[in-house]
């Protein structure tokens, strides 16, 4: 299998950077999931789609806008009414969903190459993300597992909280390097490590 090329490569500098006055307060990684799939249900078919996500990914999503779950290997979250992003460390998720999500339920769109997944973690994750997005990142407002759709400048982004101080951000591949550079720049103030 031919390895996928990361769009971040020339700007992906493993190691610690920035201001270490308080140590390293941000960890940045490209998670490189094997599959990123967008699922969309027709109106009234949302629960069947949620059931399909449970059947294929083993994630029982809560009902309601923006709800999501992550088990470390697989993640799923709603990002718009009836629309979900599902990611998996393994490849082949789109084909698996295509077998379950019938045309009567909705559509499956493979975005495994088209989106880049970046993880930001650490005690200052909320602080750094607040520089980018007009989103309330406080835990009560944005619980673990939940997802949000938003933009930074012209960069559309989907964000899932995968830990108390950990977020996975999905951005368009073509914008990913630009976004990554901005993320590193914004993290300098608090010290960051690229893993």
């Amino acid at each position, binding site marked *: 299998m031919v390895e996928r090329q990361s769009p971040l490569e020339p700007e992906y500098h493993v190691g610690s950077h920035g201001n270490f006055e308080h140590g390293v307060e941000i960890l940045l990684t490209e998670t490189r999931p094997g599959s990123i799939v967008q699922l969309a249900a027709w109106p009234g078919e949302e629960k069947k789609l949620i059931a399909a996500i449970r059947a294929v990914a083993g994630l029982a999503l809560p009902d309601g806008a923006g709800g999501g779950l992550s088990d470390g290997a697989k993640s799923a979250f709603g990002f718009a009414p009836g629309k979900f992003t599902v990611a998996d460390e393994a490849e082949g998720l789109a084909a698996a969903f295509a077998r379950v999500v019938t045309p009567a339920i909705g*559509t499956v769109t493979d975005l495994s190459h088209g989106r880049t997944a970046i993880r930001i973690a650490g005690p200052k994750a909320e602080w750094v993300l607040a520089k980018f997005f007009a989103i309330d990142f406080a835990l009560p407002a944005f619980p673990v597992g939940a997802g949000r759709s938003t933009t930074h400048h012209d960069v559309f982004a989907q964000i899932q909280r995968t830990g108390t101080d950990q977020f996975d951000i999905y951005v368009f591949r073509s914008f990913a390097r630009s976004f990554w550079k*901005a993320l590193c*720049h914004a993290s300098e103030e608090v010290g960051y490590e690229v893993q």
Partner: protein
Amino acid sequence: MSPRRADTGGRIDRLKTIRFTFDGIAYTGHGGDTLASALLANGVTLLGRSFKYHRPRGLLSAGVEEPNALVTVLKGEVREPNIPATMVEIHDGLLAVSQNRFPSLAWDIHAVNQLGGKLLSAGFYYKTFMGPVVGPLKGTRFWMFCEHFIRRAAGLGSAGSAKDPARYERMNAFCDVLVVGSGPAGLMAAKAAADQGARVILADLEPHFGGSANWSGETIDGAWATDWVRRTVAQLAARDNVRLLPRTTVWGYYDNNTLAALERVSDHKEQPAKGEPRHRYWAIRAGSVVLATGAFERPLVFPGNDRPGVMLAHAAERYANEFGVLPGQRVVLFTNNDSAYRSALALKQAGAAIVAIVDVRPQPSAEMSALAGETEAELLSGHAVVATEGGKALSGLKVQRFDMVAGVLSGDARSVHADCLLMSGGWSPTIHLASQAGAKAEWSAARQAFLPPKPTQKWIGAGAFTGSFSTVEAIAEGRAAGLAAAGGTAAPAALPSVEAIPGDPDPAPVFEIRASGKSFVDFQHDVTAEDVRLAHREGFVSVEHLKRYTTLGMATDQGKSSNVPGLAIMAEALGKPIPDVGTTRFRPPFAPVSIGSLAAERFGDLKPERLTPMHDWHLANGATMYSAGLWYRPMIYGLSGETVEQAYVREAKATRESAGIVDVSTLGKIAVQGPDAATFLDRVYTNMFSTLAVGKARYGLMLREDGFAFDDGTTWRLGEQDFLMTTTTANAGRVMQHLEYFLDVVWPELKVHVTSVTDEWAGAAIGGPKARQILAACVTGTAVDNATLPFMGIVHGEIAGVPVMVCRLSFSGEMAFEVYSGAGHGTHVWEALIEAGKPFGLVTYGLEALGTMRIEKGHVTGAEIDGRTTARDLHLDWMLSKKKPFIGSAMMDREGLVASDRLDLVGLIALDNRPLNGGAHIVEEIDEANPRGSIGHITACCYSPALGKHIALALVKGGKARHGTRAHVSDPLRNRFGPVEIVSNHFYDPEGTRMHG
């Protein structure tokens, strides 16, 4: 130790000496000093020159409202003008200079303007720039010449042109309660709200929280108010649900309780820490807001009230109590209210001699008389200051008996020797944010001030902001506001006890002492009381007109100290009460905001840009990149010594002779999926897509609803309910919006989903006579012969172990194929194609060659689909289906859209064998001296290697009928005139034999 600096007192750190420079002279100050307090401590009282008259000016205030002492701060090559010295925290190495003076602050030649008082009165610009109506200087040209000199003589500081290397950031914040202002009211509000569990942000524009408690000299709960502040702030800082933002000016109040604030993060440091911004722009979305922004003391308007040494009373109190600096040794106070007596006592305790207290009121209260006695000052009640004396510093003043009811002076003027005159004209609550939030201020006759309006958004006021000027009231109101803002109930609680000097908060209604001499209302814009009256005499009635005509309340301080006195004088002139005259609505920003903070980081290296999967390959292989919207695309792959034209001619020629490959990943790609996808596309495109077979592609044209051409591209049917639409690079976003609009709003019943998959696919277009052979050499899993892959056919296979989708379609006019692979495999596939093409002479080509070949073929792009052309104009009427309606079909046959004199697409050949220019006009008869008679314009041009000529596409009136005729290009801007032949837009292989093979 400076003679003006007390040995004790204040919150400055006397153990820390800071060295800074003002106007090239080195000074020292202490930790905690502002530039104003440090200069004052060094005996510097002349800090600026006034706007028009260049009068010497000193400090009026100690805070953000300072109108006089504006300085320019220099950092490296960067100069930031118009910063109040009162807001500059000194640090080692600080460089500041005065402004609006030449050659120096002490000796300013423009001070001659003071002799032209009448000439420079209200409405100067309106009157002056009208220009003479007769004579040799008629018109405005002469005055435009004079403007340069006038502007040099009048103004504020000048901005620099050096690039600002500082870092600026934008932050987004959410909270339940935002408390603006951290005096006793704000601190109590923040504490009460935090105790309720609310998420609280406390913002104050000063570096230290506490507001008036830092200088009032009062005690709270038996300790100095400053200790109470320290304790309370420490409690707040220890809480997880409180964010403290010192040095943060909340400057805008917008809809839905969104507020804008500027945090000065590192201005007070010699160097910012690594990664630390200079300023942060905070966009704060608050559930509720507590406005505890305090009040501004007002000056009194009397002749000579702007002389250095004349200062607001509370400002002097601040300098004494907060910074340990005395503004003078022999002090006189001039007041219409009780608060100045407290200031007198504070200065007395700090070591100054209080010479006199001049009170316009005939009989101050017994308590005030007693206070005056404590200060050992002579109490001159029923008196007013009518003049000040001295040059660049106050040496004395004149007082006269004054009847405040009649406004009449009487008796002889008496001279008083003093080096400092402190004035207090009452207090104006700082209602700017409430005013911005949308309601009209309400006049209080008792307070002689505009009080905040009733809230139109979710805010609650507390303390001096509401007109409650005592600390006891501030604490009570602050707690109640904090509780209410957090949704708590006001349970009885023991409030901190306050020991303060009593005083009546209501001033006497006296704003001006009318006597001979210039009496300034607006210090920053040099507007006098006489200017206000002149505006009235010249017919200005509305307060809005008054403001604009006199410029009262404009400039960087936005009239913080001048608005109410100005209105009062206008009201008197009009013979109306102040509330009938009204006040102007405050607008953002409350205080100046750095442009850098608004721009934040959307520039330079951090500007968002889009890169194709093969971007790095292009750079490594000699591509010159070209910015196409946010995308970067190869323009040419130039060889050493080649010009752009030589490179694209070589690339296009090689493609037509053998094969060429171009990165087309930027084309917009939209997945159109669902049971109704085909129906939807039939409505979106002018031609039919429901008849398209799976595994085939079709060229499609979209119109806007108004019938004009919108976008074009091919759409591929990958499955019965699964289409891949391609759009032009530039229009991808607009087409997506267009589709989503129709699905969401017009046809919600259609089961169709559209998803941007532009970034999912890397695209390489390979064309030329040998393109098929190259593909055959590297594609596995499928044949690519004509039977398997006919024109507009699609096959799936692999290249170098990677799945690919190949569609045979052509933009270049050659036998061509588009090879799509997953974006992460884009470079891998691209390199495999390059390798496979080596034996066949495959070249890489960029946008220039791409454009050249499309011009030769007469294909249209955004240059021709420019929002003004129809399908017929572009000879695409063959695509307008008559079997079905589609978006735009109802409007495309309107009279104006089918008129015979519309601009049609044509080809042009330069008959003088010289390059043509995009945008050049086409004319029937050339007239270089008087260009006219345009019949159209060039949309795209190139040198055609296939034809060996300079050619162009153009939109020309009645274009098709002109084929074979001659016309001329007329391009006076670039001085290019010459003959052209009008021909068909299909220059090259019009039958398409090369493409179909």
